[in-house]
C-alpha cells in the first residue's frame, strides 16, 4: 500500500473490505453498517514530546507528520488499535491485556516462545512429563484438551507498580467481553473442561471470531480476585478480569498432513519423550489474537500446531 498524498486538504480514502464485499455478494442482508470505530494504527505515541523545549505547539509535531498508508482491504489488517470513549477525562492509567505465564508452569509458554498445540495423540504422548514439570511446558493437548492442565491465561488490569493491586479497578475500565480470533482451519477455542466455545462468525480468510462475555462464558472469563502483590500475578496494579482457554486442533490437522505441507515446516522439538535430543515435528506457526471489546487493547499470542513426523 502506498502512502496517501498529504500535501493538500485532508482526504478520505474509503474501501470495502474483503469481508464487506463477501457479505454484499451473499445478498442475505448481512452487509449492514450500523456503527463505526476510529483507529490510530500508524501513530507512534512515543513521538509525543510533552517536554519539548519550544512549547506545547511542538509536542505532537512529529506525530502529525506521520504519513498514512492507503486503506487495506483485508479486514484483519486494519483497525488494529482503536480509540476508546471513556466519559471521564481525568484518567491517567489504562488497562492492558497481558499473558500470565507466571501463575504456574501450566500457563507458561514453551521455551521456543510459542504455545505448542499437539494435534494428535502420538504428539500428545511425546510432549509429556519429561521436563520435570506437571507436563511439558507450553504444550496444549489439541486432540484431547482435558488430557493435561496446560492452558493460556490472559489477565487484564493496570500494569503499574504505582497503584496497589489491593485497589479495585475502576468499573469503567473492567473488560467484560473478549474477542478471540483464530484460524478456523487449524483449531478452535475450548474451555478448561473441553467445552467448545461458540463461533460468532468465520470471515473470508477463515478467521473464526469468538465473542466471550463475563457472566455468560463463565468457564472462560472470570474476575481476578487475587488483590495481593504475589508472584503469580502478571498485572502489578489493580486487576479486572482474566480469560483462560485451551485450543483444540481441527480434524483436518488431526487426520491429514495437508496444511502442514502447505503452511508449515518440519523442525525438531527437544526434550520430548523421544529423548533429550528431541523428535522431528511438523509445525505450523500462527497467532491467536485476543482483543478487549470495551477497552480495545489487544495482544497476539504465538502458537505452533505440532504433529510428530
Amino acid at each position, binding site marked *: 500500500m502506498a502512502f496517501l*498524498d*498529504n500535501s493538500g486538504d*485532508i482526504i*478520505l*480514502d*474509503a*474501501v*470495502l*473490505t474483503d469481508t*464487506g464485499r463477501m457479505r454484499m455478494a451473499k445478498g442475505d442482508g*448481512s*452487509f449492514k*453498517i*450500523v*456503527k*463505526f470505530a*476510529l*483507529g*490510530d*494504527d*500508524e*501513530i507512534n*505515541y512515543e513521538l509525543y514530546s510533552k517536554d519539548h523545549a519550544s512549547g506545547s505547539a511542538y*509536542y*505532537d509535531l512529529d*506525530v*502529525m507528520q*506521520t504519513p*498514512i*498508508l*492507503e*486503506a487495506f482491504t483485508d*479486514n484483519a489488517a*486494519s*483497525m488494529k488499535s*482503536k*480509540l*476508546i*470513549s*471513556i466519559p471521564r*477525562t*481525568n*484518567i*491517567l*492509567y*489504562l488497562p*492492558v491485556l497481558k499473558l500470565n505465564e507466571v501463575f504456574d508452569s501450566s500457563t507458561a509458554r514453551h521455551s521456543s516462545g510459542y504455545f505448542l498445540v499437539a494435534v494428535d495423540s502420538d504428539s500428545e504422548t511425546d510432549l509429556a512429563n519429561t521436563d520435570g514439570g506437571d507436563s511439558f511446558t507450553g504444550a496444549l493437548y489439541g486432540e484431547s484438551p482435558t488430557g493435561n492442565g496446560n492452558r493460556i491465561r490472559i489477565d487484564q488490569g493496570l*500494569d503499574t*507498580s*504505582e497503584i496497589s493491586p489491593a485497589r479495585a479497578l475502576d468499573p*469503567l475500565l473492567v473488560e467484560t467481553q473478549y474477542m478471540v480470533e483464530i484460524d478456523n482451519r487449524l483449531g478452535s477455542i475450548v474451555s478448561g473442561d473441553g467445552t467448545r466455545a461458540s463461533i460468532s*462468525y468465520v*470471515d473470508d480468510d477463515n478467521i473464526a471470531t469468538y*465473542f466471550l462475555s463475563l457472566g455468560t462464558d463463565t468457564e472462560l472469563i472470570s474476575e481476578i480476585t487475587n488483590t495481593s502483590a504475589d508472584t503469580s500475578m502478571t498485572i502489578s496494579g489493580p486487576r479486572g478480569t482474566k480469560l483462560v482457554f485451551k485450543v483444540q486442533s481441527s480434524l483436518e490437522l488431526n487426520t491429514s498432513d495437508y496444511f502442514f505441507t502447505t503452511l508449515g515446516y518440519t523442525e525438531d522439538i527437544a526434550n520430548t519423550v523421544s529423548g533429550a535430543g528431541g523428535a522431528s515435528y511438523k509445525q505450523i506457526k500462527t497467532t491467536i489474537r485476543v482483543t478487549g*471489546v*470495551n*477497552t*480495545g*487493547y*489487544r495482544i497476539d499470542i504465538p502458537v505452533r500446531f505440532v504433529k510428530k513426523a
Partner: protein
Amino acid sequence: MATTFKNFLSNDLANTRTLLHEAIPVTGTIVSGTYSDNNIKEYGHGMFQSVYDYPYLSSSANQIFDVTFGLANNSSLSASTTNQIAKKCNIYNQMAQTLVGYDQTGSIKKFTDSNGNEIRDALFVNFARLLTKDEIKKGSFSLMALTGGVINALSLSHPLTITDTSGANGYRVDSPAGEYGYLYAGDRGLIEVGQLYYQAGIAVLSGGLVYGSAGGAPVYCEYGGPDSHTAASTAATASFQSVATGSSLNVMADGFRTRLHNVSFNNTTELNSTIYFCRVNHNDFNYSSNPTYLTGSKIRVKTRASDAPVTYITTIGLYSADNELLAVAKLSEPLRKSADTELTLRVRLDY
C-alpha cells in the same frame, strides 16, 4: 463503561447518486496501422472482428470494439449475396432483436430511421463495456471516417464526421435496450446515417457509408439497400452492392477500419453512494488502545490525571452489528482529537 464503537443514528446516513464522465478517444491509427493488425482478432466463425488497443495476444491488451455487418432478410441484396448470407442475416436479426425488439406478432422489427424508413443493411460497431461503462454520454459521440476525396454525391467534405448531435435533448426511449439517438453526418446540413444506443454502447451505421466506389473514392450510401438509395451515385451503389454481396464479414470489417479516422465520446458511470456521517463528540474517542499510548499502563500523552487526553485519528472503520469490519477509510494525515474538539467525518461508499 469504556467503549470502542459508536452506533449510527438514522440521521447519520445519506444516499446520493452521481454521474461520472470520462473522455474516451480512439485514434484511427490504432484501429489500423500501428500494430500491423496484430491487434485485430478474427474468429473461426467469421461473424465479427474484434479490435484491441494492443496486440491481442498480450495480456495487457484491452478490447475496444467489435465490427460486424448485417443484412435484413427483405433487403434486395439478400438474394444476390453469395458470401456468408446466412451469417449476415443472423447478425442483423440478432442485433435487431436486442436493440429494436419485436412487433405485436412476435416478429423481429427492423431498424428504421427517424422517418420510419427501414435500414436493411447496417454496419454495427459494438463498443466494449470497458470503454462505455454504464452508457455513452448523450451528445458526446463523434466518429470521423473517409479520410480521402470529396464525397461528391452528397457534397460532403472529408473527413466525414458523424455525431449524435441531437442526443443530449432529442433521444428516443422505445428500444428494449435503453435509450438511443440518431447519428448525423456532414458539416453542410446534417444527414441521418444511423443510430447510437447509449446504454448498449452500439453504433448502427448505414451499411454503405464506409465502402468506396470501384475507383477507391469514398462515397455515401443511403438506407435500405440499393433499391432505395436516394443519395448515392450509381458507382457507389454498385461498389457497396459488390462488397455486401461478395465479401466476407471480416473483409467488410477491414473496410470500415481502414477508413476510420477516429472515434471519441464520453462515457458515464453511475455512482450510487451512501454517506456515513461519523459524528465524534467532545467526550468520544479521547483515549487509545495503541500499545505505544501507554508506558506501564500510564498514558504517555499525560503528565497528570487532570491533563486533557489527546489521540490522533488515522482510520475510520465501519462495522456490522456483529463487529465485522465491512469498510475502512483512511485520513491522509492524522487528525488530532481531544476533549475540547468535536468532529464530523464524512465517509462516502460508492456502489
